[in-house]
């Protein structure tokens, strides 16, 4: 079982969600985050004065999938979130020791 954490553009959330649902990934957690990788910040204006925004708004999608699904899920996320421009985001995969379902007490590993 693996935790996939994808940092993507805010306007790609629906596409990624749809792509994951299509391959049968059941659940996910979506968080608003700010950060930067290689993408340059951009300039904004307030009351006639420019200022730099270096930490850009992104969305983080977390989902836990079975080992056999990981490659397919990464491919689905990457295809849906890609624009080819700097700032498309990243996908991180980490192993998960086990998961515990609160309602049923079911333990999965």
């Amino acid at each position: 079982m693996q935790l996939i954490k994808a940092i993507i553009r805010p306007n790609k959330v629906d596409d990624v969600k749809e792509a994951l649902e299509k391959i049968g990934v059941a659940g996910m957690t979506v968080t608003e985050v700010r950060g930067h990788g290689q993408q340059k910040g951009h300039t904004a204006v307030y009351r006639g004065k420019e200022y730099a925004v270096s930490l850009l708004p992104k969305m983080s999608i977390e989902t836990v999938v079975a080992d056999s699904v990981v490659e397919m899920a990464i491919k689905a996320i990457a295809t849906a979130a890609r624009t080819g421009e700097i700032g498309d985001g990243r996908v991180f995969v980490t192993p998960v020791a086990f998961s515990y379902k609160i309602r049923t007490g079911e333990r999965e590993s």
Partner: protein
Amino acid sequence: MRATTLWQRITTNFRDPDMRARVLALAGGKAIGLILLLTAMKIYLAPALFAQTPAPSGPSPEVNAINTSWTLIAAFLVFAMQVGFVMLEAGFARSRESINILVEGIVDTCICGVTFWAWGFAFMFEDGNGFIGKHGFFLKGLADTYGTTGVPLLAFWVFQFAFADTCSTVTSGAMVGRCGFIGDILYSIGVTGFIYPIIGHWAWGPDGWLNTLSTPFHDFAGSTVVHSIGGAISLTGAIALGPRLGRVFARDGGGPMLPHNIIMGAVGGLILWFGWYGFNPGSTLSALDAGGIGRVSFNTTLAACSAGLTSLFYIYFRVKKWDLGITTNGFLAGLVAITCPCYWVSPTGAFLIGVGAGLVVIWGIDALEYIRIDDPIGAVPVHLIAGIWGTLSLGLFATGAYGAPTATGADTSAGAIVKGLFYGGGWAQLKAQAIGSGSICLATLAVSFLLMYAVKATGTLRIGREGELEGLDIHEHGMFAYPEFATHPSSPLHGSPAPSGASAPAVAPAKARA
């Protein structure tokens, strides 16, 4: 057929004792109500309807009902500007100090009402000498109506209270984000109790010295009396307080601190514009001056429009963006500027006054940034600087067609007309405007420096470092404006350095990423 069915239903139902009781109860209740209503009509309405002679009541001849209605409607519109002010200020501030802005706006209003009743009105609008009114404390011993307006004194008081409150709220604008609540209360009493009414008496008191110059100083609705005084006090407050922690100015490589809700700020600006239709046209104190209120409404509108456009395009050519914040400041500056001359200028004059206001407000914002004075919402450029421009502009643009307003219309006698430099009136009116604006601004700056540093000496003017970093809202008022959201006041976006040139700084790739 249908009628017989109905009759059958009634007879069947009437035989049912339960149904019979219900119907009787219902009908009985209606009968009682009807009897009570008719009796009440007999007692209260019949005498009025059938009386042979009209009742000898009605307004005393010197009260003018239509002028009173107009003045009160205008007063309520001016009061609505409080909504605009708190929204503008709170929207342009950070979320951590927005409750503080609301509380201060409301409490300042309450303080203003009490002080203006107790002594402020007497200082400002009653006879005394050229510098201060001397009787009418607690509104006692005053005439039924104010001057020749035909407006009852208490109605006139409500209108003038709303003006005093506007001045008081303007004051807090440049002090947002670091002024303690007790300090705010202390200086507010000074502003609405003393500075505004006493200095305002010079221009608007019946025997004020600026009113009795050989060419009188004219300030129709208060570019100087309300806005310059408010803006000047605000400036001294901002200087006495110093900038907000973490505010780095443009020449030191910093940028502005960001607003938490610019939508709310701009909506507040539009509500202020709406309220201005009471502020300026209402200052005729007369609905009989139909030409006057029409002219003033028109000039107010046009100046706001031309000022908003001027600021919009000016900043577009500078940063290549259509900036909401500066456009809001721009049209407000146009409104402030037209407040003084709106009764005496032509449409062309109003348009040009607006253009001038749209420019000076941006130069004012630049100048404050350069001399490192932190004015979070632009109160000083909008109210003080545009107020000075508007006051002087009367000396340039007054057409000479109208004189001072009276209860029935403009005084157009030869000795009373107001004529500016551009219309062949010579320098006299411009000189009077310069004397009025200069003396009032300098006196206000001097007195309010004393006031602000006196409050500062009590240690209540600026809150402590911890309180400021934590935010005034939780520190002074024990509450967050948006308790359900995980917003953090020290967002990394606040006060980040401005980019040099057009391109944003490159961010180094994070090498540690796995």
